[in-house]
């Protein structure tokens, strides 16, 4: 029995268990419901708004972009919070005390947060198809594009969540170091209005990060070819999308293990104890 492979399979089982437990938890059900209702309400109230010069209705244009943003948001903020919290509550320390425990833990996190996207996609996509017309213009080919953008987008952004969760000093700081940058990036990444509406330098900044490209990839999957005129350079830039997302994925694969190892090295019982005392103080 190879202990590393064994730990990875235990980690997969852990990720699956966490996913099932999360589906059964009222807290997480509430989160999915909130995201679904919020997104649909936004689309519904703008269902008659037409996007200038394209003849496209806002829900058609915005839905793929919002999906893109939610994927990025979910797999960055989710793991960031989870990791910051589990550093403080001792989950991580438990795994550090096991042979090959960290490998199992990280595997579990990766699977859990990837699976967590499925209910989110379902609560938004299924009602959207019922409420709006012309949501998916490209049939099976479009769904194939959704699949690879999803996978590549995950690989590009999930490690960023793990990195943020490893370096933030405490759970309370995830808002500042995780939420704030992601919300800012979403705002400038052409999710709610086309990216051309912004200054050139902001467009350049947005195109460094993966959120814009996940949104673009999703739009290329859902929207008709005519809609390409709204994009920069009148092109879906599929090749560039793959390159940018792959580059972020490689960055994640190289940096994340180091950051995780450094973070795990510093884990100890007294650190968990300190976090507990700090949290009690926080509540008072």
């Amino acid at each position, binding site marked *: 029995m190879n202990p590393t492979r064994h730990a990875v399979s235990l980690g997969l089982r*852990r990720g699956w268990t966490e996913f099932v437990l999360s589906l059964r938890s009222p807290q997480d059900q509430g989160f999915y419901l909130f995201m679904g209702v919020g997104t649909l309400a936004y689309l519904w109230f703008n269902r008659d708004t037409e996007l200038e010069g394209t003849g496209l209705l806002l829900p058609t244009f915005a839905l793929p972009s919002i999906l893109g943003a939610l994927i990025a948001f979910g797999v960055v903020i989710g793991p960031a919070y989870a990791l910051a919290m589990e550093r403080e509550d*001792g989950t991580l320390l*438990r795994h550090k*005390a*096991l*042979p090959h425990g960290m490998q199992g833990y990280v595997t579990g996190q990766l699977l859990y947060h990837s699976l967590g996207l499925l209910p989110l996609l379902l609560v938004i996509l299924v009602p959207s198809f019922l409420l709006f017309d012309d949501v998916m213009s490209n049939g099976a080919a479009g769904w194939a594009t959704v699949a690879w953008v999803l996978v590549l987008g995950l690989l590009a952004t999930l490690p960023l969540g793990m990195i943020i969760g490893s370096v933030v000093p405490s759970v309370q700081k995830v808002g500042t170091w995780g939420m704030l940058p992601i919300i800012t990036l979403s705002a400038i990444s052409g999710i709610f209005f086309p990216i051309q509406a912004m200054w050139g330098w902001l467009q350049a900044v947005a195109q460094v990060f993966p959120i814009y490209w996940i949104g673009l990839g999703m739009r290329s999957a859902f929207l008709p070819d005519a809609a390409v005129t709204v994009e920069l350079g009148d092109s879906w830039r599929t090749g560039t999308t793959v390159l940018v997302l792959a580059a972020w994925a490689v960055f994640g694969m190289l940096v994340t293990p180091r950051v995780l190892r450094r973070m795990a090295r510093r*884990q100890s*019982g007294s650190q968990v*104890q300190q976090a507990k005392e700090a949290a009690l103080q926080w509540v008072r």
Partner: protein
Amino acid sequence: MGPDPEHSAAGEPAISVRGLQMTYGEHAVLTGVDLDVHAGEVVCLLGPNGAGKTTTIEILEGFRLPSAGEVRVLGENPAEGGDAWRARVGVVLQSWRDHARWTPRRLLEQLGGYFTPYATADRPRPYEVDWLLRTVGLTENADRKIGTLSGGQRRRLDVAVGIIGRPEMLFLDEPTAGLDPQARRDFHDLVHRLADLEGTSILLTTHDLAEAERLADRILILVNGRIVADGSADALTRQVAGSAEVRWACDGERFVHATADPTPFVRELFRQHGDRVTDLEVRRANLEDTYIAMVQRFESGDRTAPQLAEVSR
């Protein structure tokens, strides 16, 4: 298959520490700790808050890097201990709110799985989950959410998680804090069983001196970052000069006298005062008296033999 875990030579101590130092910036927490734990021995580390107990134990667990000194646990340096070493060491952690949605059974099955590759013919790993649940007294709560367990039940789960890999060396940092008397008694039985039947070497810290006296083959007292006493509870008590206290009243006045040998003292007392002696009480110093005397002496920087104070009032 993992490497053979039984490679430590027979007779080699489970823990051997020489000149261990730990400094945070200017602040020296450990200033030269020497200690040994022999195979199968239960050793208790006592000391006031801030003496460096937790730091010492975390260095031995491999969770913290020492500033200086030589540390060997099961024949390896914990800082470099690999996964095969990790499989032979058990750590009982103070959990807080982790795995709130899991059940004890599910968590033990998941965490125990990591030890399967390290099972050997004479040391099957991990323990069977049902047996473990029964042993720590969690059978009835095995399928409840961990988030709904009481503090005492959580501590039992912590112990179960710590020993699930059938460790050869077990570390416990204040294992019975927050346990009720029955749970504490059960826990003591469990420690005895691990040490006697499984030959597990155990190092624990506690503030409960009765617990130390009951559990430990040997007691170490850590004060100001050094081990100031090392021996069985009896041996330590004898180290304190005046290990008994005699109280009596004479003509309405009350007296206290500390002495190493109370019998001749009391004989002399009656010879001098006869029937005027009333309310006689002879009390042998216990571990607590010894502990307090030693801590006071070393904290005040005095290195001479500790004594029970002699007073008259």
